[in-house]
């Protein structure tokens, strides 16, 4: 198990380096090939060539991509100093780059925004697990009934309706219309109820999408598991049906869902872009969209890496949990 973990961690590290290189290529080489001068994004419209040159220097745009990537990786561990025109900017370790658009180091901004994204993802995950699993299991047990069809139609709607639609709709109804919820983000340290009021709609909106997916998968998996021989064995023992479902069927149903959950949460760590944008939540997703619109490369790079890292970690955690749940995996 330990050797396995070490191997996986090593693979993850290699993967990260590859991601950094690829991201660098995408963000620095592709514009170059397309004839776009990145430096022009960082200066005003009246900037002279020397200003453009200074920016190019600051961002070390003239260095080969590998050198830039190496500097970047070094910065993560040792910190970095950007100097240009008498202006020295320190970016202390872990330095995931420095934005010259907002004059902020990337890492502190990400760590500051991360809790919002984390709260959004975890809160929504709790909701979507409760409702997704419940709906999926009930649908599986009542398959073919009106309930089942109704639930699956709602689930289909949840999967196919875009977040900004459901989000705006929920805002229009509960916030502007009925006025039950303010719907605006309030930091947790300011007010717990205010925070809850700001988070509840995003939670529900995001959870609606995922609950729909989870319900569909749960239903399908549950139906498959219920046909397994060991479920019949459990019944033949004289177990009450609720126990059969809970103890025997649910545990097997959870395995594929766990993989999904790990991947989904990992991906969400990079920010739920649409949800955060719709509700103006100051999380990573909002930042990354903002960064993309403003061509703020360091932030895009930073968030991309954080997301990749989160997905890699999620993968690892899922694998370990998998072994905990399914004893057959432990041997491998």
């Amino acid at each position, binding site marked *: 198990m330990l050797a396995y973990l070490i191997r996986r961690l090593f693979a993850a590290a290699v993967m990260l380096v590859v991601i950094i290189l690829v991201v660098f290529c995408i963000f620095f080489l592709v514009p170059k090939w397309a004839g776009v001068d990145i430096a022009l994004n960082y200066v005003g419209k009246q900037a002279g060539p020397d200003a453009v040159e200074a920016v190019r220097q600051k961002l070390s745009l003239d260095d080969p991509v590998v050198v830039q990537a190496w500097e970047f990786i070094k910065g993560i561990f040792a910190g970095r100093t950007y100097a240009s025109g008498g202006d020295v900017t320190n970016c202390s370790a872990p330095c995931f780059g420095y934005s010259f658009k907002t004059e902020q180091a990337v890492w502190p901004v990400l760590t500051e925004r991360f809790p919002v994204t984390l709260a959004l993802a975890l809160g929504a995950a709790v909701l979507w697990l409760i409702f997704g699993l419940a709906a999926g299991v009930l649908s599986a047990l009542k398959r*073919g009934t009106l309930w089942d069809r109704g639930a699956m139609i709602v689930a289909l709607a949840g999967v196919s309706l875009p977040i900004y639609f459901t989000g705006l709709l929920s805002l229009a109804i509960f916030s502007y219309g009925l006025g039950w919820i303010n719907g605006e983000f309030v930091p947790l340290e300011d007010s717990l109820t205010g925070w809850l009021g700001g988070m509840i709609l995003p939670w529900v909106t995001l959870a609606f999408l995922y609950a729909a997916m989870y319900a569909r998968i749960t239903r399908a998996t549950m139906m498959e598991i219920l046909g397994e021989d060991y479920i019949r064995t459990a019944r033949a*023992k004289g177990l009450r049906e609720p126990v059969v479902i809970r103890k*025997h069927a649910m545990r097997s149903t959870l395995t594929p869902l766990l993989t999904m959950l790990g991947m989904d949460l990992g991906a969400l760590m990079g920010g739920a872009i649409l949800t955060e944008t719709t509700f103006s939540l100051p999380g990573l997703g909002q930042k990354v969209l903002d960064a993309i619109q403003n061509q703020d490369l360091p932030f895009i790079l930073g968030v991309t890496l954080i997301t990749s890292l989160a997905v890699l970690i999620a993968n690892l955690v899922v694998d370990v949990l998998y072994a905990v749940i399914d*004893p057959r995996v432990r041997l491998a």
Partner: protein
Amino acid sequence: MTELSKSGAAVGEPTGTSAAPSAFLEVRDLKVHFPTDDGLVKSVDGLSFQLERGKTLGIVGESGSGKSVTSLGIMGLHTAGQYGKRKAQISGEIWLDGTELLSADPDHVRKLRGREMAMIFQDPLSALHPYYTIGQQIVEAYRIHHDVDKKTAKRRAVEMLDRVGIPQPDKRVDSYPHEFSGGMRQRAMIAMSLVNNPELLIADEPTTALDVTVQAQILDLIRDLQKEFGSAVIIITHDLGVVAELADDLLVMYGGRCVERGPAEKVFYEPRHPYTWGLLGSMPRLDRDQQERLIPVKGSPPSLINLPSGCAFNPRCPYADVPKDDVTRTVRPELTEVGSKHWAACHMSQEQRERIWTEEIAPKL
């Protein structure tokens, strides 16, 4: 076996009102039908038999003949855990120790499951839950019916594993099913079934998934255990060889019905139905040359939605034209007594069958 009532409509009494029989297990006119998109699948269509304590009944037939469905029917597993609209339709009577199961409270039947009647399944790997240890699964089976703490139950589990011949049972009790060999798994499965001393044990193809040497061990084990516990046993198999030495009585099923039944030695040595002949022909026998080709029953099992009219076996029966007036294709044959406690459903006359058996079939076996 004692008196056997006639199968199907011949009983003539409305189900559910008949008096409790004296036999330990009596099945009367059991019908198990499954509605599907293509039509009604009549998996079991009027089956009756009896079984006494301490006796073994072998139910033999091809896959799809309804033998497994019958066993699940007795266990009440067609109704437990059936979800959605398409539920199995079951009628008839199943009397177990004076209780009619089909009309009984489902929760009462549930309590009988595992305690009064237990079941061994064909493939122990898929029939055991992969995420729980053998011990956990046996402990669970025990504690459903016994109000004891986990420790006591685990002691019982170790004891049972020991009894079914698993070495180092106190260690293996914590192993997972996938850590066992096939034979060991089936022993564990048997241990689990017997943990509550059931009075009826149903073994559904208990050896099919095992290799030949292990098969014999498992069958020996079942026999020994039956003697020890005094249970009634139903062994379901497609292989007559499995039940040859084990069963007191045999019941041969075809197309959801019984085509022949009787004491085992009668059915073996004086079979009175062409389908039984076919089964005997396809049975590997130790006393014969291994090289000789097994003779399978030609053709494929009938559709349970549209059974052939007349005798369901007629399309595959080499002797379908022996009776006159095409009766095999128009009239369904009823079970008739062909010997002492020996019944068969065939249009051929007793003489015709005896002649064909002694002259054509027996010499080739």
